[in-house]
């Protein structure tokens, strides 16, 4: 089984700054990390490989420094990694990004399963996974909380939703996006980390994947951000509860009940 895991390097904060002119996320000067949701995608890919055999290929689109997250992927068990990096990719929105990733997946060839984190913590759109499926015309299962089985060229997954979960069967090739309930990501071993430093990571450019220039970068991105503004801060306050321990506990429970927390 050939599994591709799409990952992203994001600023190490959930308090992303937006450039007021370009309306794009400011990445300069920010420490960068592997998108936390992608760690679950990687772990699931590696677990499926360990259970069913095959290989895991991690791919990302980003600047040259995004290579770091691919090395992290290798350190936790991905077999190969590919960096999609070129100035022409810059400014891509989720549609253009998913197009580039889809073209890379096509070039890799023979892919059975594509796994993405449910969303990236910088843009929070949750659109790239479904976008890849749309570009490739693959079946998709979003918000996957468990992979039940893989058999007969099909994958059976549990999809989380507000009232519980669905069990879905998808024919391969398929795209799934995963939530953090799916697993506990492993910590890289020293052996894995050392191997990741030595491995060669190819860099693919638009021409390598046959991407059409008018479908990538800012020009290929239909999204127009007209205005951004921070959400209104939630009203918070502190209530001091006085009394004996029993009275305090009772008052606390009542307060929590009043707010439907318990």
């Amino acid at each position, binding site marked *: 089984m050939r599994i591709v895991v799409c990952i992203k390097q994001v600023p190490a904060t959930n308090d992303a700054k937006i450039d007021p002119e370009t309306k794009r996320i400011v990445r300069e000067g920010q420490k960068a990390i592997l998108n936390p949701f992608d760690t679950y995608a990687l772990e699931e890919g590696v677990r499926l490989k360990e259970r069913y055999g095959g290989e895991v290929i991690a791919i990302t689109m980003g600047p040259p420094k995004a290579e770091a997250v691919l090395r992290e992927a290798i350190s936790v068990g991905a077999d190969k990694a590919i960096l999609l990096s070129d100035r022409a990719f810059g400014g891509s929105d989720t549609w253009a990004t998913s197009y580039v990733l889809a073209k890379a997946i096509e070039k890799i060839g023979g892919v059975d399963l594509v796994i993405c984190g449910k969303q990236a913590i910088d843009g929070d759109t949750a659109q790239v996974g479904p976008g890849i499926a749309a570009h490739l015309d693959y079946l998709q299962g979003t918000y996957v909380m468990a992979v039940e089985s893989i058999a007969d060229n099909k994958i059976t997954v549990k999809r989380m939703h507000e009232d519980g979960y669905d069990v879905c069967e998808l024919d391969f090739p398929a795209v799934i996006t995963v939530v953090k309930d799916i697993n*506990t990501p492993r910590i890289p071993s020293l052996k894995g980390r050392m191997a990741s430093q030595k491995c060669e990571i190819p860099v693919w450019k638009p021409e390598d994947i046959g991407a059409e220039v008018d479908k990538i970068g800012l020009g290929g991105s239909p999204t127009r951000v007209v205005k951004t503004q921070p959400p209104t801060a939630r009203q918070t306050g502190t209530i001091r509860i006085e009394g004996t321990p029993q009275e305090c506990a009772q008052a606390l429970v009542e307060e929590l009940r009043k707010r439907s927390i318990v």
Partner: protein
Amino acid sequence: MLHHIQNKIYHVEILPPKQDSEKLEKDLETFADKYSRVMESGYCACITDNAMGHLAFQGTEMIEELELPVFPEQVMIHLNTFHTKEDLDNILNTCIAKGIKYLLVISGDGSERLPKLQPSDIGAEGVESVTSVELLKYINREYPGKFNLGVAFNPYEPEEHEFEKMERKMAAGAEFIITQPLIEKNAIVDKLLEKYPNVPTIIEAWMSKKLHLLSEAVGYEIPEDAEYDPIAALKMIHQTYPKCGVYLSLLGFKTQYDLIKDTWV
């Protein structure tokens, strides 16, 4: 462990590189140098396990990957509860294969990213989470006679609770005790020594000049500019607790290492 104390063998803490180290090769080299120095001195190297919740490489994998020699009397591995069952057994089996017998078993202070042992993983019943007590029971049950197990004692926690925990640790098979850092004579530790006179006890000596970093551990604010002489504090520990061993945390290998050999008289 008793002969470590009788033979004045220091326990020297060595921190493995952090998982996110940006200079891993250099850090590995530094670790190997420190380890070799401790071996040459005849001391016991104590390798931490995700100390203070910082994701770091595990002691056994450091020894394996760097092919460091193990002299059974000179290596102690910290083992906490932030592992999967598979990793736990891997660590224990690697210890056996490498001849490591001293383990300091502690309840983990790991970060959110770390997995956590569940009671069902190690056959612990009637508890909601795995602490050092359950881990001790598991190791003694599944690996009988393979290890010499130590536990931590924190004199800055509520006394009654800490002594009650210590009783459970002893009942679960603990064979030696290592305290939290002492910077002066401590009445709770005195009680511990009275209560367990036959259990080898190692006092942790804080070897960093940055005493304020201990504020959280001791439960009161130590000012950043507090003056502290680690070597003088070490001498105080030897004088105050002559029947105890000493665990050196955050020892400066460049500035302090050569001074300690003349301190334990």
